[in-house]
């Protein structure tokens, strides 16, 4: 019971936190780019764009920061035996992230907000780039920690604890270097689709067309390039899985027995976890070989074979992750990804042909498409983390062994309810503000409150 509740809580808080992270990373880069265009081209329009999209960034950033606080503390709170076991390797990246990146972000975003009229343009632009670099470095350290859970490297076991032997190995973990580009590309996609969706909404309302035209074009280009980039980096992830985490790959493909050569890819399948077989499957020949090896040949090992191998290696136990979740979350992610590529491609063509303002059906589709990257990001992480089960650190520690033995089910239930409640309220407040800013558009007084909130007036203001 404790295990189940602790896992639900970790999943819920982490998924919620990761709603905000990719948007912060992607939007910071795009805003920095807009401001750079402003500085280079000296066109006021780009300044207005940076300011307008900056509002969304700030609303989103605040929730991202506070939900990150829970992330850092709940390893110790709910997973104390895990923390004892990996703290030596897992703790430093987290601490470094707090130290380097957090300071970089929180310092320069403050200066960026209040510095529009006070700083030279180039310095102000530099601040946003530093925020963008800060958020991207944050992601690198966190993924370095996560990559250790997926593929532990650079450690030795001393007194039953993993101790770091090489930070170079931890940072050159092959898992990190397939996961990091994938995350960055997905983040840019997320930011692009927010801008695309809100621009489409304004096109439909026929408001500020001139303003949104440029945002739309930039976001469509970024959306297409980044979603294609996400697919390519995702492909390198699957090649990694075949080599390092074959069980996750087999589960994601619903592959019970070893595949033939060449291996077909299942579009859909009826997965029967009790009899360990599929009741039916619709397959595309060759495709799994292509996804796994990048060529038209090669076979994959199935879950049943791997299970036997692992029993011999690690002792009795069930080493097959929840297959249905792994299989379907992978397909949801891929489907959302392809839909995003398609939508941004069509959007871009219509934009070049100058037909976008009249393509009302597409515009209407692009608004709910804001959610597509969120669906893809979430299902991608679900696949990655569920597919790693029963391990919390692959091959070294099971999830069950990582839990806090002294925290009761009642306590976790309380925190789960409390966190869910406050997160729901935060989500409502945030969406409400997003909609409000989108409805107001770029022409509403941008300097809403800054005269009164300007810290450099030492608070002696009246207003």
């Amino acid at each position, binding site marked *: 019971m404790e295990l189940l509740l602790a896992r639900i809580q970790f999943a819920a808080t982490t998924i919620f936190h990761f709603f905000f992270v990719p948007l912060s990373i992607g939007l910071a880069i795009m805003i920095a780019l807009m401001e750079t265009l402003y500085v280079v081209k000296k066109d006021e329009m780009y300044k207005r764009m940076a300011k307008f999209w900056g509002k969304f960034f700030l*609303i989103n950033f*605040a*929730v991202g*920061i*506070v*939900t*990150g*606080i829970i992330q850092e*503390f709940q*390893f*110790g709170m*709910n997973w*104390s035996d895990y*923390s*004892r*076991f*990996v*703290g*030596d390797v*897992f*703790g*430093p990246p*987290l*601490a*470094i992230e*707090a*130290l*380097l990146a*957090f*300071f970089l972000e*929180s*310092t*320069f975003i*403050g*200066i960026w907000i209040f*510095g529009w009229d006070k700083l030279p343009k180039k310095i102000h632009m530099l601040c946003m780039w530093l925020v963008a670099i800060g958020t991207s470095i944050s992601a690198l350290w966190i993924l370095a920690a996560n990559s250790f859970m997926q593929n532990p490297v650079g450690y030795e076991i001393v007194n039953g604890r993993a*101790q*770091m032997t090489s*930070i170079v190995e931890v940072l050159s973990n092959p898992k990190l270097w397939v996961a990091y580009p994938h995350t960055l590309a997905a983040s840019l996609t997320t930011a692009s689709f927010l801008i695309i969706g809100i621009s489409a909404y304004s096109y439909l309302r026929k408001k500020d067309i001139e303003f949104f035209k440029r945002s739309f074009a930039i976001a469509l280009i970024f959306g297409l390039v980044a979603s294609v980039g996400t697919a390519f980096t995702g492909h390198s992830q699957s090649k990694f899985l075949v080599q390092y985490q074959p069980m996750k790959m087999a589960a994601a493909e619903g592959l019970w027995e070893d595949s033939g050569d060449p291996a077909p890819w299942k579009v859909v399948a009826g997965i029967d976890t009790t009899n360990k077989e599929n009741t039916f499957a619709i397959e595309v020949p060759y495709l799994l070989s292509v996804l796994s090896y990048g060529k038209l040949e090669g076979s994959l090992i199935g879950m049943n074979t791997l299970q036997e191998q692992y029993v011999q290696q690690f002792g009795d136990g069930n080493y097959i992750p929840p297959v249905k979740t792994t299989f379907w979350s992978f397909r949801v992610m891929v489907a959302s990804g392809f839909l995003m590529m398609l939508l941004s491609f069509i959007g871009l063509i219509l934009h070049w042909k100058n037909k976008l303002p009249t393509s009302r059906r597409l515009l209407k589709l692009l608004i709910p498409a804001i959610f597509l990257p969120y669906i893809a990001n979430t299902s991608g992480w679900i696949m990655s983390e569920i597919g790693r089960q029963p391990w919390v650190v692959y091959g070294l520690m099971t999830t069950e062994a990582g839990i*806090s033995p*002294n*925290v009761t089910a009642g*306590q976790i239930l*309380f*925190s789960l309810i409390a*966190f869910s409640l*406050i997160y729901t309220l*935060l989500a409502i*407040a945030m969406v409400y*503000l997003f909609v409000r800013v989108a409805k107001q558009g770029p022409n509403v007084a941008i300097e*809403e409150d800054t005269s*009164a*909130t300007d*810290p*450099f007036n*030492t*608070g*002696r*203001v*009246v207003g």
Partner: protein
Amino acid sequence: MTLSELWFVLICVLFVGFVFLEGFDFGVGMGTRFLAKNELERRILINTIGPHWDANEVWLLTAGGAMFAAFPHWYATVFSGFYLPFVVLLLALIARGVAFEYRSKHPSDQWKAIWDWSIFLGSLLPPFLLGVLFANFIQGLPVDADMNMRAGFFDIVNVYTVSGGIAFLLLSYMHGLLFIQLKTGDDLRSRAQNQALKLFFVTGIAVVLFVGLTAIFTDAFNTRGWLLIPMYALAIVFYLALYPLLKQKREGLSFTFSGIILLLVTSSFFVALFPNAVISTIDPAYNITIYEAASGAYSLKLMTIIAGVWCRSFLDIRYGAIIFSEKG
């Protein structure tokens, strides 16, 4: 000094930095109800800390991260052992953090009222909880042979720990009032000064009571009295010196003094604890020393190098940037 000892000191420094900086943030947050009379005054108060709260809170995050990385057993025992207090602390910090950012984003009064209450409660609870937790540290925790702590309600909340919470709460509020008189003008400033004077004796008694109870309920003075007695004596001297400074309205100096008092009280917890990270009330043999709790030599060395590089470059950047924008 070994690296374990160095990191124990660094974590102490991080907590002291957090208490010093976020201490007045919390105090100002409390002032939004106890001092401010209307929406305008609340806004002025919040503006004095609004832009810095996140940078100040990073001290706590870094302290938590450093505990995880440098002393995994300490981190694991304490965070799982104080599960519910940490849940409440997190809820308070989350509500408060978002409130600073969201409060001014919508003009309606109701919207502002929600976030104002978040700021008030989010500033009131954490210093009290932290005081209770710090007092728990030196009182000792029911930690068993497996380093796990199973504490009942009255293990955590008792006369002694509550006195720690109250002392910490009042000191933070005093610190906040002295920050307000430094940063605001006119009526608000003089009211903050008056309130600080009114609270002077109550706060002083709370601190002395806490120190007295420490002598009764804990081993701290037996094991490290030679260092704790001069520290507390110094704190009391600074506290007494605060009174004439308040009377004379020496704003900068009185704020500095209250900061020094907080610094002394917070570091006294770590002095009392050393060389233990956790003191067990079940059996002294179950005490977790910092050497037992520490990470391997490689990790500690790595973190030391990174912290060193960071101190040189990033602190320069941060404070350089603040100074730059204040001039700009």
